[in-house]
């Protein structure tokens, strides 16, 4: 029998690929072959979820030592010293301050919020292309439990009791959504995984899909059992080629092992999954647009109600859940609602995956309990603002999120606290901006995004986003007028109240937020004819204070 002594995992996400990860992988294989270690050392890939600065990452088991960033030229040294001589190469380790603990950390300790991995607990630890790795780490246990020890109603009850809320942005209670579908008598019913993540700044779902694809598949089968559906669709954005490839492989493996297909776990329950690739349209992340797209049409949102829970795919009852939401399902079923509720806040239990971007020292991704604050995120995980600058504002939840001024950085980040402060948590992208960011310029860029991504079906959104963009451009270029601000305020109301779907409604939010929190800065552009930060095209003009 072949005895494997060590396992070497090399990060294989696009961010790492950009930093020679493939070359590192190739050199590792080459070195190990030339030293005759092929029989004892396995080199494979993993979905990487650590900080960008540590890319590409190489983890060696069983010692669980993380090296990074690893350059191709570091490979001979690592192989010789670590894999042959058994010594740890300390000067090539991932710098401690960059590395989120990959192993399990118990709850929040003291004042420092520890990273708490629930949905990403296997990402970066297992080989995402090997179902056996997933099973060794407890994979498909939740499915077995649900199908053999629980009724569908009990599964829905467990998710409801856990208080899981949709992680795609809206925060709708997942158990309630499932119950709406479960109580429909019409069949067939469908389960859709919304993996059309296109929100600027958000790439958490990509890392879940690339790092742990089976967790989403397992969750979908459990969902299907709970609501009475036997067919599922994963709608993945077209640009996520690696995620698609890994999902296809994972589905084939799951079918082979009997976790998909007919009579799963001998329970008499059948379920299978299709993958549907997007073709480049942000709006297809909206659940009804996504459904239209699966049906082979333009991805234009439908009027709601009726909701997908009663009239979804081909008019049938349909559950649509985000990737991160689904990834929470197996651990909840496995460990129970009470276990899940120990994380986060009473009304927003669990963890949240955030991507940290912009002018911070360390960008990347974290999974932390719900309820930590922006100040903590910037100080602890972002390691402060880059170049010693001052924090000015943050945008949460990608382009459709809110703009948060410094005065709100101590508000706990959970669905309810943020809702009370009229802030949207959105998809969990945290774009941190320093004092050199101009509020007008940032909002203009955001509105440019919305006017281009508006599907054009409803007039308030199609015309409103374009008009708001033009007014902001006028202000940025020195042609702004005070009546432009009045028109913006009118447009905010129109977009929010009259748009058919969330895209147009969300487009109003950054405009509303800058007028609320940075009005003086906007007015300075108009009344004084300067951009106080010196960013806008008019900025060659300087404000001289005598």
């Amino acid at each position, binding site marked *: 029998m072949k005895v494997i002594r060590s396992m070497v995992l090399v990060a294989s996400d*696009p*961010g790492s*690929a*950009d930093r020679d990860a493939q070359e590192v992988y190739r050199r590792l294989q080459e070195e190990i072959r030339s030293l005759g270690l092929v029989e004892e050392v396995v080199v494979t890939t993993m979905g990487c979820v650590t*900080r*960008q600065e540590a890319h590409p990452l190489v983890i060696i088991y069983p010692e669980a030592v993380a090296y990074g960033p690893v350059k191709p030229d570091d490979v001979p040294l690592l192989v010789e010293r670590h894999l042959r001589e058994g010594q740890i190469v300390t000067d090539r380790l991932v710098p401690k301050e960059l590395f989120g603990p990959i192993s399990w950390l118990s709850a929040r300790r003291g004042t420092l919020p520890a990273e708490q991995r629930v949905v990403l607990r296997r990402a970066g630890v297992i080989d995402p292309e090997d179902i056996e790795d997933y099973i060794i780490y407890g994979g498909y246990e939740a499915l077995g439990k649900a199908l053999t020890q629980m009724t569908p109603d009990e599964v829905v009850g467990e998710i409801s009791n856990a208080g899981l809320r949709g992680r795609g942005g809206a925060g709708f209670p997942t158990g309630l959504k499932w119950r709406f579908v479960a109580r429909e008598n019409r069949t067939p019913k469908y389960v859709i995984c919304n993996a059309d*993540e*296109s*929100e*600027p*700044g*958000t*790439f958490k779902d*990509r890392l879940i899909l690339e790092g742990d694809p089976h967790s989403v598949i397992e969750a979908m089968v459990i969902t299907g059992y709970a609501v009475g559906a036997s067919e599922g669709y994963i709608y993945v954005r*077209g*640009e*996520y080629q690696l995620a698609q490839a890994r999902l296809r492989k994972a589905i084939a493996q799951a079918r082979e092992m009997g976790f998909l297909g007919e009579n799963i776990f001998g329970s008499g329950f059948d379920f299978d999954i299709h993958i*549907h*690739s*997007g*073709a*480049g*349209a*942000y709006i297809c992340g909206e659940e009804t647009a996504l459904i239209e*797209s*699966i*049906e*082979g*049409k*333009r*991805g*234009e949102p439908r009027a709601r109600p009726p909701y997908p829970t009663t009239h979804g795919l081909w008019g049938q009852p349909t559950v649509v859940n985000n990737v991160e939401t689904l990834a929470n399902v197996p651990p909840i079923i496995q460990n129970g609602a009470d276990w899940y509720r120990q994380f986060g806040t009473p009304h927003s239990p669990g963890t949240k995956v955030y*991507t940290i*971007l*912009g*002018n911070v020292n360390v*960008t*990347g*991704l974290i999974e932390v309990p719900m309820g930590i604050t922006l100040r903590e995120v910037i100080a602890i995980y972002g390691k402060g603002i880059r170049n010693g600058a001052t924090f000015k504002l943050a*945008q949460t939840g*990608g*382009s459709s999120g809110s703009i948060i001024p410094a005065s709100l950085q101590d508000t706990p980040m959970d669905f309810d606290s943020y809702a009370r402060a009229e802030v949207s948590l959105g998809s969990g*992208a945290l*774009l941190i*901006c320093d004092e050199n*960011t101009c509020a007008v310029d*940032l909002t203009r*860029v*955001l509105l*440019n*995004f919305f006017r*281009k*991504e508006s*599907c054009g079906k409803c007039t308030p959104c199609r015309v409103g986003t374009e008009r708001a963009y033009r007014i902001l451009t006028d202000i940025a270029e020195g042609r702004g007028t005070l009546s432009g601000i009045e028109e913006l305020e009118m447009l905010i109301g129109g977009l929010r109240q009259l748009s058919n779907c969330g895209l147009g409604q969300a487009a109003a939010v950054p405009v509303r937020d800058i007028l609320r929190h940075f009005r003086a800065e906007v007015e300075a552009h108009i009344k004084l004819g300067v951009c106080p930060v010196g960013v806008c095209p008019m900025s060659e003009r300087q404000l001289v204070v005598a």
Partner: protein
Amino acid sequence: MTIAVREDLDVRAVVQAAVERHGATREELVAILSDVNREMGYIPAEAFEEVSRLLQIPKAQLFSVASFYKMLAIEPRGRHVIQFCESAPCHVVGGGELWRALREELGLEPGETSADGRWTLVTTSCIGLCGVGPVIVVDDDVYGNVTPEQLPEILARYE
């Protein structure tokens, strides 16, 4: 990998292979068009005729779907497609300067193809690599943390 336009391929054969792969149903329309687009570099008029015939969907509807999705092209593109991410996360870490430099270097406006057929420049919304912004994608190659100074060297890699 290049996304070169392949006029030499038999359009009907490409469409028929795609339809066979996915099945002649409306549900598979986007997948079929994506395959044709990938192989031909864009979707030629003849392909619409063939898809229309095989799937029994009017050409106007096919055009309506194809023009909706950004990854589908209804006109030939250059030998290399440069996608520039213009979203806010890239913008705040130097994307604005990079965009100006890129347009100057290429002499193109977004959506345009160069006269020699070498480049097509398009803007794109986020591609999920915001941790290494600003980002450009040339064909299938991703470049992160790009500065204006690096542009000439990157572009020189593509003929």
